[in-house]
């Protein structure tokens, strides 16, 4: 049963870095609610503040001003938060420690879980997570991170999420370092997470194409502000903000005119 309390609720949050003349407002007066079971994409160019917003949701940063609530309360204890809110990072190559096997690192992730599982249960959950991303557990048995390709590593990060089954997933640019083929894969897995585990997913990206397929709602971010938001079809087909129009115009699409020589 999805509850009525929003998963995330932001009221006029601001996050600044530095001080005095060098003060930078990375997130500038942003308000939104994200409901249980929703997939929301936050789209914007580099430096628009989307990654900072993701880190606030993960509890890695605190907002400088405004109110940010997770399920109706402030994030006090990071470990409590990570029990329920997990993430996938951008660079699959740097996400694993090359001195331990992949399997041992997937199993180590269960340390954060409040409900303590037995060794067998953890092992079963990891197997299930691997199968969910179409990897036979025996294929990575005894393998180290450097033995896999970038696309396979990105799958391992998603396997970790399938195994942990957090309530909320923050995906911070999971597609920016992988090529077109792997992107279609990631799309499949994000949909599967939503359908099978009814996970709430916040998808931070500059890849408006992928967010168009995957999300229930889209936020377009620019200069720390959310400039456009709504259903993907509305935002993309009937953009209201000039920023969105510009962003859509900048993407090279095969059927549309782009810059010409």
């Amino acid at each position, binding site marked *: 049963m999805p509850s009525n309390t929003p998963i995330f609720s932001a009221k006029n949050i601001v996050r600044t870095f530095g001080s005095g003349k060098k003060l930078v407002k990375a997130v500038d007066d942003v308000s939104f609610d994200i409901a249980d079971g929703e997939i929301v994409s936050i789209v914007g*160019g*580099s430096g628009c503040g989307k990654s900072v917003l993701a880190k606030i949701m993960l509890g890695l940063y605190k907002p400088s001003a405004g109110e940010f609530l997770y399920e109706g309360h402030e994030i006090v204890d990071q470990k409590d938060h990570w029990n329920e809110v997990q993430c996938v990072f951008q660079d699959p190559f740097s996400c694993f420690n090359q001195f331990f096997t992949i399997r041992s690192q997937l199993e180590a992730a269960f340390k954060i879980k409040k409900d303590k599982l037995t060794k067998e249960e953890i092992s079963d959950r990891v197997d299930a997570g691997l199968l969910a991303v*179409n990897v036979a557990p025996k294929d990575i048995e005894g393998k180290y991170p450097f033995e896999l*390709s*970038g*696309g*396979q590593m990105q799958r391992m990060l998603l396997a970790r999420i399938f195994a942990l089954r957090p309530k909320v997933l923050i995906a911070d640019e999971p597609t920016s370092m*992988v*090529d*077109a*083929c*792997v*992107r*279609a*894969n990631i*799309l*499949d897995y994000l949909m599967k997470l939503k359908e099978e585990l009814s996970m709430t997913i916040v998808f931070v990206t*500059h*890849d*408006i*194409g*992928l*967010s*168009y*397929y995957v999300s229930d709602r889209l936020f377009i971010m620019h200069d720390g502000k959310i400039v456009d938001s709504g259903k*993907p*079809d509305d935002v*993309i*087909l009937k953009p209201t903000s000039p920023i969105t129009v*510009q*962003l*859509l115009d*900048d*993407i*090279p*699409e*095969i*059927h*549309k005119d*782009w*810059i*010409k*020589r």
Partner: protein
Amino acid sequence: MSNPVFEVENLSLHYLTRFGQKIHAVTDVSFQMKQGEILGIAGESGCGKSTLVNGLMGLFIPPLHPTSGDVRVGGESLMNRTPEDVRENVLSRKVSMIPQGAFNALNPTRKVKDIAADVIAAHEHGTSRAASYERLAERFALIFGKDATKILNSYPIQLTAGERQRSVIGISTLLNPQMVIADEPTSALDVSTQKVVIRMIFDLLDKGIFNSMIFITHELPLLRHVADNIAIMYAGEFVEKGTAEQIVFSPKHPYTKALMGAMLSAEPGQKDRKPTAIEGAPPSLAKTIEGCRFAARCPVAKPECTQKKQDIRMFADRLVRCDYAE
């Protein structure tokens, strides 16, 4: 008919590992480019694109070695040269490279103008520093307009990602190379910056700073707008080569079709077309492969495909490496 500016003949390259094993990263690549042509090369990561770049410059630094074949710029072969000779006589003037990571390409302790002046000094002995700066100011004014002086006097760290990449392109094309090879020049940038950088490349082409370019990327939609012709690379081989329109709108090789099918786009009416990923992984290049390299992942593979080597041939006005293309 004018002579081709760039010719590649049956080029094969391999890596020699520490254990004496040969990894055949590029196999039997051939193509010719006319003056003014832009050729796009696309493929998954690990398909040999980046290795090919080094081969195309004649730059062989162990463990990379040429197996066979020839690369010619304006009729002159680039093979069998020492890396020093290539750096001195080929790079920057004949063939120039635009790398992906602009941040690694610029020495962080030097100003942009000094990095650029060093390039001039390395190739044109005896050019005075003042003369170099003057030339730089002129060239950067083409690229950056009134910001040129500011950019030239900055350290790389003070620039935005887009300015850095444009500076790198400005430096790479400083000596008006006959051929430019751009290795994923915009992959690390966001879409808006990408557009600015591509516009700048077009600008340099229009002004005749350079004429011919090889553009390497995994973004087929981008290539559709940038390239005249596109070659699709898989497991070290070209599997299809045709005009940009042919490749993007009517692909013939099963792999090209699969690549197009995996594409996501935010265009109206595209949402119903569900993108499908290509399952499986490319074959290991450490062993010799008997049949078609794509057979194991090919949705229309016939039993004999794993045995029978496929040759690249003309089919529907373009080159295709598949006997069953339709």
